[in-house]
């Protein structure tokens, strides 16, 4: 794979923990890769199988959910549901020709800014080792597709204060992949 491969990674982050942890990491001036594109959920329990699939279908190189520590979910079991759904997608991916390692479930608390940065770095390294998602198409934004798929459950974005991860320069137009198959 090309050394200059910069993956695009979608993170479905819980508003109570991982999203705040990202904020904290920013405030702490911790470095983490700019590959991370966040979608804020009120709880990872709102994450659906189709959200992960839509992101991958649109070419996301990796997708992970980041929820509260087990036992600490604000809604008791949302993060446990998210883990089951991620595991289900891991079972589906080999059938369609993708590596199950492209999806993952992580847990962290809002106080774990360094953990957020560590996870982002670790997952980015994993995806870099895997190489690009073969489904990636020019002109299709995985982040926009994932946002569209999760539009009924996602919370509005707010740039984490002092986030170290700047938005990629050339964001493709926010356009969900159509239901049509592989475009040219």
């Amino acid at each position, binding site marked *: 794979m090309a050394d200059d491969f910069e993956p695009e990674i979608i993170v479905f982050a819980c508003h109570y923990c991982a999203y705040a942890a990202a904020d904290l990491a920013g405030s702490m001036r911790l470095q983490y890769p700019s590959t991370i594109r966040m979608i804020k959920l009120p709880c990872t329990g709102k994450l659906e199988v189709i959200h992960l*699939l*839509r992101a991958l279908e649109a070419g996301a190189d990796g997708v992970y959910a980041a929820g509260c520590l087990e036992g600490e979910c604000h809604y008791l079991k949302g993060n446990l549901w998210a883990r089951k759904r991620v595991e289900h997608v891991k079972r589906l991916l080999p059938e369609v*020709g993708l590596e199950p390692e492209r999806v993952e479930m992580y847990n962290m608390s809002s106080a774990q800014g360094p953990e957020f940065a560590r996870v982002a770095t670790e997952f980015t390294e994993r995806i870099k080792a895997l190489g690009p998602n073969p489904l990636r198409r020019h002109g299709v934004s995985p982040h926009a597709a994932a946002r569209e798929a999760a539009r009924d459950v996602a919370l509005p974005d707010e740039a984490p204060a002092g986030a170290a991860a700047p938005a990629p320069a050339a964001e493709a137009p926010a356009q969900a992949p159509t239901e049509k198959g592989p475009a040219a």
Partner: protein
Amino acid sequence: MITAERKPFDEILELVDGHNKILVAGCDTCVAICLTGGEKEAEILASELRMKAQADGREVEVEHTAAIRQCEWEYLDMIAAKVDEADVVLSMACGIGIQSMAEKFAPKLVVPAVNTNMLGMPQEHAVWLERCGACGECVIGETAGICPVVRCSKSLMNGPCGGSHDGKCEVTTPEKEDIDCAWHLIWERLKAQGREELMHKIRPPKDWSKSSSGGPRKMVKEEAKPV
């Protein structure tokens, strides 16, 4: 309720092989309740099929839809336009819904994405147990509300057989889990009801002609037929 399980993905691929416009059609009644073939699951399957096609470098259009009930033609009109456009319809309904689609839209190719497996009772969330064999001649009035036709592995009318041990059947599920011995349950519940004498009599052979052994069945309610 009628339950179904999704077919293995490879089998689904074979069924739609060679077709470039696929409609995945869910049904929002029984198969949606058993989390197999509702609109949500249709969308997931459509997404998987698109990914697979793209990974294989094939130009395939895959859309999804869902009918409120595929088994009733009135509801199929609502998805007729999408069906028209497709080369093949991959139905996620139970066997009734799939055949209803195949008949309504004949000779359109309609293939199953699920295996319909039983008339089951939800035991807990996402777990179903077979409870009825639709045999056409219900006997549970004399068996304490427990069906020996589907809950006894041998469909005995005069059980339990010699394979009953500690309340369990000699057969295990494909996952090697124990199965309750239906006749043990019947015995215990009849005793609790003070009706165990029902176990003393010899129950005659069942009339299987009222089940599928009698040929395809038809039910007509004369009093309710349109005038």
